């Protein structure tokens, strides 16, 4: 090993199937929960094409250029089944651009649930089925088989690590959150508690969020963030082997707009980093095999990469969210028994975590409506559409004579 230090850049790509304005009068009549009319905020094709134009296409173009110009540049990406399906249907040229990037051989695709769901916490069988579905679509589209795992919203605990270890993954990732790290730095490789072979990479959330959340914030005292400044911060931990920069892919062009200079920042990153001969880039799996774990990390309670709480409360914090998700998983046995593939797929699309996020009221009664990123006017509307679709799932089961 000639290099002493690697950036592990990991980008997450996802779009849900948003539920249309679906009323109780539609239930039992129309089963097209995800077909919002064109021009409405919940229209999935519209959103996908908009994000593709602002983020996917320009970012892929740059990633490809970065890969071509810097032989040592590598990255990892997770890309959900629900977004792959939508790319195939609404923007095949965008899917092609992802394929070109992956075809360089220096982009690792990370495993996860096909539906970006919280199934791990509700049904192990369903969770495994969705991980399998995701592997199959990744193999079909990209011709690669994932060897590293991430769970929805980077939700993580010891139990998940044990599962991934037994499933044969080389690596798993989580938030390098201070309360679980203790005195440890996120810039090392770890072994999850109670596992044998798997390794754990922890997100350097300070440096990651400087890019993902703060980059264009003019009130931030470090604004504007230049590559040079960022390199200085990165070099402060020169004696630590990893720098795990994990973020949403949509950071580039969608969360941080092009006019903020985010694309130039991205494109300069490998050049600036690789000026030092001892620096390199690694994929998640590669990093897990290149270093020895320095310690075992014990994380019994679930953490995520979200909010200041780093927990699941944005998805499961209120009564609507808890009620909706448990109602959905309560249908698991009858839905699967129906053998109706369309019905099963609709049920799975409803498991996507975004639906529960849209029901979040954490910021709502404080009047901080700007913190509410959702296609719906209120969290209550999100819940109503969801539950009406749920009522319709029951209707479809009853129609088949299946008792619910």
């Amino acid at each position, binding site marked *: 090993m000639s290099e002493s230090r690697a950036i592990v850049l990991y980008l997450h790509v996802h779009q849900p199937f948003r539920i249309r304005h679906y009323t*109780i009068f539609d239930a039992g009549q129309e089963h097209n929960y995800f077909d919002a009319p064109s021009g409405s905020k919940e229209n999935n094709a519209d959103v996908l094409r908009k994000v593709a134009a602002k983020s996917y296409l320009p970012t892929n173009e740059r990633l490809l250029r970065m890969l071509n110009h810097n032989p040592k540049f590598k990255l990892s990406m997770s890309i959900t089944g629900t977004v792959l399906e939508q790319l195939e249907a609404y923007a095949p040229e965008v899917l092609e651009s992802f394929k070109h990037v992956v075809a360089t051989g220096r982009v690792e695709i990370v495993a996860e649930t096909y539906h970006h769901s919280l199934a791990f916490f509700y049904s192990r069988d369903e969770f495994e089925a969705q991980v399998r579905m995701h592997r199959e679509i990744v193999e079909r589209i990209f011709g690669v088989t994932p060897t590293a795992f991430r769970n929805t919203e980077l939700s993580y605990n010891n139990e998940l690590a044990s599962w991934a270890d037994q499933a044969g993954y080389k690596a798993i990732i989580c938030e390098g959150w201070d309360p679980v790290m203790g005195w440890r730095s996120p810039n090392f490789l770890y072994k999850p508690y109670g596992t044998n072979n798997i390794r754990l990479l922890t997100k350097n959330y300070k440096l990651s969020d400087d890019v993902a959340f703060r980059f264009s914030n003019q009130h931030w005292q470090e604004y504007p963030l230049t590559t040079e400044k960022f390199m200085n911060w990165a070099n402060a931990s020169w004696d630590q082997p990893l720098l795990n920069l994990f973020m949403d892919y949509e950071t580039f062009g969608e969360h941080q707009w092009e006019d903020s200079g985010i694309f130039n920042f991205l494109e300069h990153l490998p050049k600036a980093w690789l000026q030092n001969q001892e620096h390199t880039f690694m994929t998640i799996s590669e990093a897990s095999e290149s270093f020895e774990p320095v310690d075992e990390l014990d994380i019994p309670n679930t953490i995520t990469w979200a909010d200041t709480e780093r927990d699941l409360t944005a998805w499961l914090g209120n*009564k609507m969210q808890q009620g909706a998700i448990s109602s959905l998983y309560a249908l698991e046995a009858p839905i699967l028994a129906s053998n109706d593939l369309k019905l099963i797929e609709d049920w799975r699309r409803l498991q996507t975590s975004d639906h529960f996020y849209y029901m979040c009221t954490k910021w709502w*009664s404080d009047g901080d*409506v700007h913190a509410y990123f959702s296609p719906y006017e*209120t969290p209550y509307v999100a*819940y*109503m559409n969801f539950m*009406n679709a749920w*009522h319709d799932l029951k209707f479809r089961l009853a129609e088949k004579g299946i008792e619910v």
Partner: protein
Amino acid sequence: MKILMLGWELPPHNAGGLGVACAHMCRALASQGADIDFIVPYINSHPDIDFMRVIPAIPADAREVMKHSGAYDSFYYQSKTGKKHEIAANDYHSIYEASVDRIVTLGEYDVIHAYDWLTIRPALRAKQLLGIPLIVNIHALEYDRSGGGYGNPFVRDIEYHGMMMADKVVAISQHVKNIIVREYHVPESKVEVIHNSHVISGLNNQIAGPNTYRYIEMMRSVGYGIVMFFGRLTIQKNLPGLLRVMQKVVEKHPKSMLVLMGSGEQELELVELAAELGIGGNVIFVGFQRGKEWRDMFGVSDICVMPSVSEPFGLTPLEAAEFGVPNLISRQSGVAEILSSALRSDYWDVDDMANQIVSVLQNKELATQLSEDGISEVSKMNWDNNASKFLNLYRNQLGYAA
């Protein structure tokens, strides 16, 4: 700062929400140092008001005056001499206006603050006599009262005149401001929005124990969902629309009932329409209620609906929220601008309102969430911000005048 406030009513002599809002606002203003003389058009006393001076303008009983404050009614009286004479709102406005000549000598006033068309004539007289800034505070317009129509031209004229002559117009919601600019053509820059607020009554623990509405309680215990409306049964409130919504609700959720609490000129028409729509058995008219009878209704309601065509503000949803009852409110209302934890709909969208009501009746967790969020939201409300905004506005106006 000495304020001459020209009002129409204060609790307990109020016929509507205006008096309640005035009392809360003035209490907050007084606590921030304002010295208020509040003029009312009757002689009755206000035992709960000790934070400002209340001065009668008309030597009459409040009940008499309130009877004549409508824009459409007039009454005949026969005096002892046998002479008949007619009296209507305009006559009281004239007496109020005449009394201003005496009132302005009672203090050294800095600004005049007047409410709605009822007090515009005396307000303009006061401004003429004192030459100090006049703020016209609009809580309701003839446009709203007539359900989005032209209404009584006489009232429209007074409103228009008052707003044009005022130094500043304050609307209690953006909704009202939009109407002032669109329908009355008052320059937008002259109109400021200072929202109404709410103070919790602390009465929500008083709906425990034996409830007045035993029949409704019983229906609920066998699975009925209760939809509630509080307010006047008048065109502004869109009650024929609500009955059509209810017809759809009953179709999806047969065990549901609508309770209408209030009185008004549409009552008979509504009884007839409910029967015509085939939901006569699902609609209950309980009339106008106060006190325990009013409060207890919140204890047996699953959702409170305010489907108004045009509602300047709308106090009822805040009261319902305080009692933990989920709300569905018309987007064409001022309260929709400040209450987050409510369901909203356009007043004309019968399907959407029905869908949302059924959702609340069928999904316990939605009802609970709305209830808890509503209680938490209204418990944070108070009038202090509104009072500071008014004090700033007074100061700015005085800057201009000086």
